[in-house]
Structures are given as C-alpha cells and as structure tokens.
C-alpha cells in the first residue's frame, strides 16, 4: 500500500506541492493583512480552498483523462480502489495544506475554533472534489471535469440570493459565506456531506461496470 501511495505521489509531481504551498502562504499572508472588513474564514475555507481541492483532484488526480487509463482499467483488479486512492491522496494533501493554513491564520486572527473551520471547509470541498472525480470517470477530455465543477462553483457563488427561498439553506454549498448567522448551517454541512457520499456511490457503480466489461 505504501509503495502504491509513493508511486502515486511521484506521478502527481512536485508542482502540486509547490503550488499548494504558494497558495497556502498567500492565504496566510492575506489573513494577516486583510483586516476586519473581509470575512476571511468563510471566503478562504468555504469558497477558495474547496475549489483548490477540486482543482487538485481534477488536474493532478485525473482518472479517465490519464493517458494510461485503459491499461490501468484492464489490468487492475479493482478500478474503484485505484480511483479512490488517487482521490484520497490529492484531496488529503490539499486538506493538509488547508489545515496548515487554518492553524497559521488562527495565530493572526482568532475568530473561530479549528474544529469549526474544519467543518466549514470539509463538506463543500468533499462535494465539489467528489463531483470532479465523478466527471473524471465519465469524461476522458483533459480539464473537462474541472471546467464543469468550476462553472457549478461560480453559479453557486452567484446565486446566493436563492437563500430567500425556504429550504435552500439546507443545501446551499457556501452557507457560512452567504449567511454567517444562519442557524441551520450544521444541518447544511451534513446534507452536503451526504450528497458527496452519494456521488461516491455513483462512482463505485460506474467503476464496477467498467470492471465487468
């Protein structure tokens, strides 16, 4: 297992770590200089970092767009395990960088406890990156998965006025960013995480079907 993880990290390459570190450092600097006007935590950990995790999964952890996909699909005993491993590595590393950013930015501006920051970050990051993994399984074109997720991310950002409709607050992806005081935000995070899990159910079924062929 460790050998496979090492091999996947080697495939992902150094650029991922350099870019992640640069992005994390930029956000830490921003946390120090942004002042009180910017709602730093929701913007950084609910909107920006989840999309960064999605870029990581779609661009560094690509599956069907990988030129060796056909060989892997034909030779591996379980395609799902390979997809999951790649996802866990890219999403996991992005999450580690997010946590580092949370810890350091909390040193500059302590507004929320770390556990709350993690809850703010994880569900949207998990949902968007799972969606990206799902698109990555269906489409072999490079950047298509991130294109689709990017458009969804932007449309969700632009449609925060939909929160006026009753019930939307339970599924809106960036609830803390749009309405920081919303009392149902924890339920919202549970719903979003559940939807993310359902996406993994679809990915599992799709991989099983590919394995069967």
């Amino acid at each position, binding site marked *: 297992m460790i050998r496979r993880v090492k091999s996947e990290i080697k495939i992902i390459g150094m650029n991922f770590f350099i870019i992640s570190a640069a992005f994390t450092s930029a956000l830490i600097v921003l946390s120090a200089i942004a002042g009180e006007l910017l709602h730093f935590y929701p913007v950084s950990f609910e909107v*920006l970092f989840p*999309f960064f995790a999605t870029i990581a999964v779609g661009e560094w952890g690509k599956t069907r767009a990988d030129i060796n996909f056909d060989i892997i699909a034909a030779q591996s005993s379980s395609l799902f395990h390979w997809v999951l491993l790649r996802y866990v590595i890219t999403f996991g590393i992005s999450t580690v960088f997010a946590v580092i950013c949370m810890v350091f930015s909390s040193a500059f501006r302590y507004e929320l406890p770390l556990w709350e920051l993690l809850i703010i970050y994880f569900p949207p990051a998990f949902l968007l990156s799972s969606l990206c993994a799902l698109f990555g399984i269906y489409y072999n074109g490079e950047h298509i998965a*991130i*294109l689709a997720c990017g*458009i969804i991310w932007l*449309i969700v950002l*632009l449609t925060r006025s939909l929160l006026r409709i009753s019930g939307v607050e339970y599924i809106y992806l960036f609830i803390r960013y749009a309405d920081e005081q919303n009392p149902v935000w924890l339920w919202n995070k549970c719903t979003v995480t559940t939807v993310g899990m359902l996406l993994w159910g679809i990915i599992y079924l799709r991989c099983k079907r590919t394995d069967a062929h």
Partner: protein
Amino acid sequence: MRKIIAIIHYEYKMQFKRLATWGILLAATVFALLDNYPSAGNLARLEFLNEPAYFVYRTMSLNGFVLMFGLMFLLAERFPLDHKTGMKLLLMSHALQKRQYISGKLLGGFLYTFSILCVFLTLNTAVYFVAAPFPVPLPACTLPLVKAIIVSAFPASLFVSLCSVALPGMIDIRLFYLFAAILFGINAAYVGSADTAPFYMITSGDLIRFIWVNPKWSFHDVGSILANGAFLMGSGLIIGSLLFLSHRFWRSE
C-alpha cells in the same frame, strides 16, 4: 500575414467544433433565461426587467460572466496542448516564426471569445424581444445590445482571451486556474452599489454603466470607467505581449 491568418482560422474553427463550447454556451444561456426571462415571476422579482437596457446589462454583467469563466478553461489549454501533443515541435520545425504562431493563437482566441459572447448576447436579447409580455420597440433592444458589445464584450473578451491563452504558455496551467478562480471569485462576490466599482471587475465594472444606470443612483465618475477599461484592455495586452519576450518559448531565431 498569411500564416497568422491560417493559425487564426484553425483556432477559430477548432474551438467552434468543440462540444464543450456549445455546452458552455447552453449552460450560460439556460442560467441567463432562468434568471432574466421576462416571465411574470421574474418581472415581479426584478424591478427594472421591463427595460430592455436593464435586461442586456444584467445578461452581460451576470450571465456573460459565467460564460467567460467557462471559455477561460477552453482557452487555457491551447499552448499546453500543442506542447503535449508535439504540435509545437512540428510547427517549430517549419518556417513559422514565433510572432506568427503567438499572434495567431492570441487573435484566434480573442475572436472566438468575442464571437461567442456576441452570439450569447444576441440570442438572449432576441428571446427577450420575442417573449416580453409587453410591446418592445426593436431599437430599444438593439441599441443597448450594440453598446454592450462595444463597451463591455470587447474589452472583457480581450482580457479573458489574452490572459487565458498567454499565461498557461508561461506558467503551470493549474496555477493559472487558481489565479483565475480567485479573480473570478472576487468578481462574483462583489455586490453592485451606487459607489464606483473596483477597477478589476471583468463584466460588472463601471464600463457597464454605459448600457444602463440605476435611476436611483447618480453616477458621474469617469475616472473609474477609464480605470476599468484600462485594466481590462491594458493587462490583457501586456500579458499577451509577455509571451513575445519569453526566450524559452520558441527555438532561438
């Protein structure tokens, strides 16, 4: 010049043949019509939707923005794809100059973005003209449409296309996506007000006030309009021209 035109023609034709182009156009159009279609519900929700100029303004600033974001992804892979498929090596082995190759790619990307944006605006305005439940004179639709194409679509297309094509030729495409996501995210988070908009707004900067101005707000700040135009056109042209200066990009000539 003939070689530049050949590359422009190839870029233009190839991008239009991509299913993703039409998918993005469709997604943006559906989003625009859900948001702005002159139905009874939308007319009750949006105070000024009975004004064609407001419809064009809103379609350009909000929905055109989504379209630009989608096109950015398609444009960004033009240079990396040539590099990856070996097309660039093939082109370098021919009597093609660096400036011809880069100019063709940049202009092709710009014309493609501008054309798609024009199609998008015209299509939505035509739907509004036909579907509005009240009489709309044709000039009331065409005038803001022409204004939107000249004052907003042109500079926004120039900025998005030149940056999206040129930057991934110099930096990692993933890093470019990240920069673009941050800029577009900041743009999406901006809420319009009577004050001057920040200069870095792509489709909802103060240039758009040439199309429609909220009658409740008085706006006379020419400086911020110029700043917005200068940012979009200036940074687009500067970033586009950086590639010409990059020695590593092409064989030594």
